[in-house]
């Protein structure tokens, strides 16, 4: 987990992202990853990408998260991570 990188294309440039957290969900049959290129948004906040991927196919299958129940779960997970980190 530590020092794992995802490389993305951003504004025509290749950018390395640190993987921050991962988790699985037996209900959605997917895994999820949170990663960041350590860039900041216009509001001064740090950008974190959260995507889902197929735990079997793995490589190159990152997908948008659009399902509301998935978002609920991510919400729960982030709260849990935040709480445990304190």
């Amino acid at each position, binding site marked *: 987990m530590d020092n*794992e990188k995802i490389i993305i294309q951003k504004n025509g440039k290749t950018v390395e992202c640190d*993987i921050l957290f991962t988790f699985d*969900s037996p209900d959605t049959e997917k895994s999820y990853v949170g990663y960041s290129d350590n860039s900041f948004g216009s509001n*001064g906040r740090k950008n974190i990408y959260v995507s889902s991927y197929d735990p079997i196919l793995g490589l190159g299958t990152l997908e948008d998260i659009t399902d509301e129940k998935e978002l609920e*779960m991510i919400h729960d997970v982030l709260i*849990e991570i935040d709480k445990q980190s304190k």
Partner: protein
Amino acid sequence: METYYNEQLLEIIKQEKENLDKLYARKNSLQQSRNVILEEDYLAMEGRINKEIEKVQSTLNEHQKILSSIDLINNDAKTIQKLVELYESEEDSQFKDILSKEIIKRKDDIEEKIHQVIPEEFARTLEDSINIRNLGKEEVEKDSKILGLEEESRQYVENLKKTRENLEQSIIEMQKIFEEERKEVEEQGPFSTMEDLDNFYASYMQKKIEENKRLEELKKEKEKIEKYISINEKKVNDRSNAIIESKKYNISPDAYEEIVDRVNKRDEVEKYLQQLELGDTSDKIQEIFNPPKEKMDEYRKKIKEYLLEKEEQKNILPMAYEKPASLMPVEQNSLQQAPKEEKVSSPISIPSVEVEDASSKKEEQENTTDLVKELIPQQENVSENKNITLNNVDKLVDKKINDIKENDLVKENSSSHNEEELNNLNNNLEEKVEDNNTPNNLNIEEKKKPVGDYGYKTIIAKLVKGLKPEEKDGKRYRASNIKVAESFRQELKSGNYLYNIVHVVPAIIKIPINFIRKSIAKRTFSKKAKDRMKTIKERLDQLPEKDVEILFKEYSNHVESERYGSGLNMLIGERVSKYVHDKVDGINNRLKEKYDDVFKTVLELDGIDEILNDKEVSEERKQEFKNHRLQILNGKANLVASIRSDYNEAKSLLSSGLHGFEENVRATDSKMSYIGYRFAKTPKKLDTKLLNKEAELEQKERQAIKYGNDEMALRAFVEAETLMSKNTSFRNGIFGKRSTGKKYYSPLAEALQYRNDPFVRDVFSTIAMFGAVNTMTHAGFFNAHKVQSEIDQMTVNNEKYFRDMSSTITGKENAIIEGMKAQHYLDSLNAGNIVGNNTYYGLKSSTQDVYNTFANSTKDAITEITTKYAENKISQTVALKELADISSNSQQQLNDIISHSFSNLTNYASKHPNVDLAGVKEAMDYLSQHPNAITDMNKAIADIADAGEKLSHSSLDKIGVLNQLPNSYRAALFGAATATALAMNVSDTMHKNAKKGKYGNEVTELVNDYAEKASHRKR
């Protein structure tokens, strides 16, 4: 149709070629003049000519390409022309049909090609020139009629298809809009840490729900259109087929369709007869449809003998109901299928409830038997029915097929039927038939009760048939295997950043290999659960209205006792909600019409009254208006009454009905206590075997009630109740009783109030006491005069506190609970900082802050444990252990404070002569050694126990000396002491009560007794 070429296009091409030649000529001429003109001018002119050549050449190429396509089309047109000629010369009608189809197909192909390949202006002229539109027009029109492709139907289908395309386009556009909106939101960076995330989450969810709703509506519309298309296309095809085929037999298409319909039904009859194993049935079919009188009786007799023989082969056990007290109708099947007034006199006895365990053959035989009986006239009515017509047979077959379809519901859900009981039931019924003429007979019609043939158990058994839904189906998605990078954990801990969470995937170039995880087993499980939910939902959607009404009216009263699991309850809840809202919409529409009627009448009356007051209107005329006035007023009182009654009906459907249903489902899902018991976990899998048995008993009971069979009703009731009791169990553990069975049976109707749960109630009441002490400590120290008034106020406050907490927990408001937890962590952290920085000892913090540091953190910690327990996240054992831990920690904290602060107090006391240091030390020691003093005081205040008297003077005297301390010290000491006392009190009380088995009540005891008695009665 002599010219096949597009003259206009040829003319254009010719012109273009000429232009091209002229341009090349100009170019040659220019080249020859190159030496006499300026090079610069030459190049410019040559460039212009080249451009012109290029342009003309391009257009020419395009036109030549079109010309090639036209050549191909012309070839097709020639072929069609040949086909048309062939069609005209052909005499064989069948071959003519084939030809006409081919002509139409090719004509359509040509037209399509023209519009696809040829630009519109040429296509038009092309069609004119080669006369494609008119090609075989007469024949085509004729063929259209032959094939039954009525323009109207085709047009309708076409329109539907266009509508579908428009809808699809709308969906795509809407999705684009939503996507853009989403991007906008994301660019604004709505996410931060928890609070901002919550805000974003709420607004996103709202938007998402709205999007989904709109998309769903569009999709539904699309589905509807597709359905119409499919139906109409089938109609067109069927009709085409009918017309073609009907020609072969020289009959009308209508007649042909009717024949096909009858043949289908006849096949159905034949199928059933074959299943009766009566050998070759073709003759019998013939007999049924054209029954010769002499064979009819013989045939009917054969069937009867066959069936009776089958019945006799069964082992008939001793009759359960030896002397029926009342009557049952003669035949169970007829009870379900025949109209109410129909009395069946056949002695053939057939069980009413089909048996899932029994072979399907048997079920079919039973159905077929009825069918045959219906098809063959009854013996005594032969003379009337001997001339059975095809139409009569049709009607009977139609009726039978409908009956079979309707009874599928019952049939599919009955299982493991006890054959012995069925035999008993048959015998019982037969006896009743025999007794039918006795003087004691009661009229069946009079004894019928207004109940249905089945109830909610039967319906739910149908819904879950073959699925075995599990308890966790339909719940929130779960996350597992959470892994966090240490760097991120540290970053969160530092609190240095706020975050935007973006859930749109950027362009990924590379992902590490070790992202591949193994969760195949979990995937399978989850997929199954989803499929189950989907299937149940589909079945619910297809449920007839009357069944949904049964669920609404009956199941809502049994949600808590059935324990079907949250997924199933959620789906049933959704369906019931839709049903109720639809029903209310209907009532509201009725109300609108009635209101309209009322106001129209009033306006009319006003108009008439004006006329009646008009002196210029003749008396005769006035009399006419008076009569009219009476006429329009007639029945309006009933109208008003019906408005009131409609309104009440709609309101009760929503408020007490639907709302009550939803509340019961919510209470069940939250697993909070009802009637004194907390549930253990809901059974993981639904026991469908048990459910089927219950469904069977339910039907038996309903039938008995409906037809006034008192004893059978009673027996079925007792059996069903006993079954429930048998499957209800309570375990006596060291922490009291808990419901652990598949069912939670209670013969009494009780309100579902979580705070009747003694465990939760005790925790909350203790916390409420703490709140009261908190108030009093700040108001002053042990003001005896205030105690009584505080008691009164506290009683009121406690009730409110219970209600508020009830609302919080039963509503499972996650946000609030999470907020409480977060607050607790924050408080804990702040407490650590204060102690760590020693600001507390330096008296820098305000009294309120210092006190709250201890008080709130302890209270929140206890609340958190209670919440987790209430949500069934932890067991009672764990809850008690955690409470004990808090108590222990608080005690340690108190001791530490006293130990550390006493050295500081020494300095303080030296500068404040009024402080009795020795007394303070003694008081502190007392507090440390007797933290229960305040607990006892709480009890006295609440008048819960008689402990109040114990603490009366000695404790007050000992603690009272601390009043001389500065506020901060005093608040800190009492805050810590009170928190310690609270934790100790809660922990001790809960342990003691649990050991006494306190957490149960007399109602649940009654259930046990009842179940036991029912069991004895059965034996």
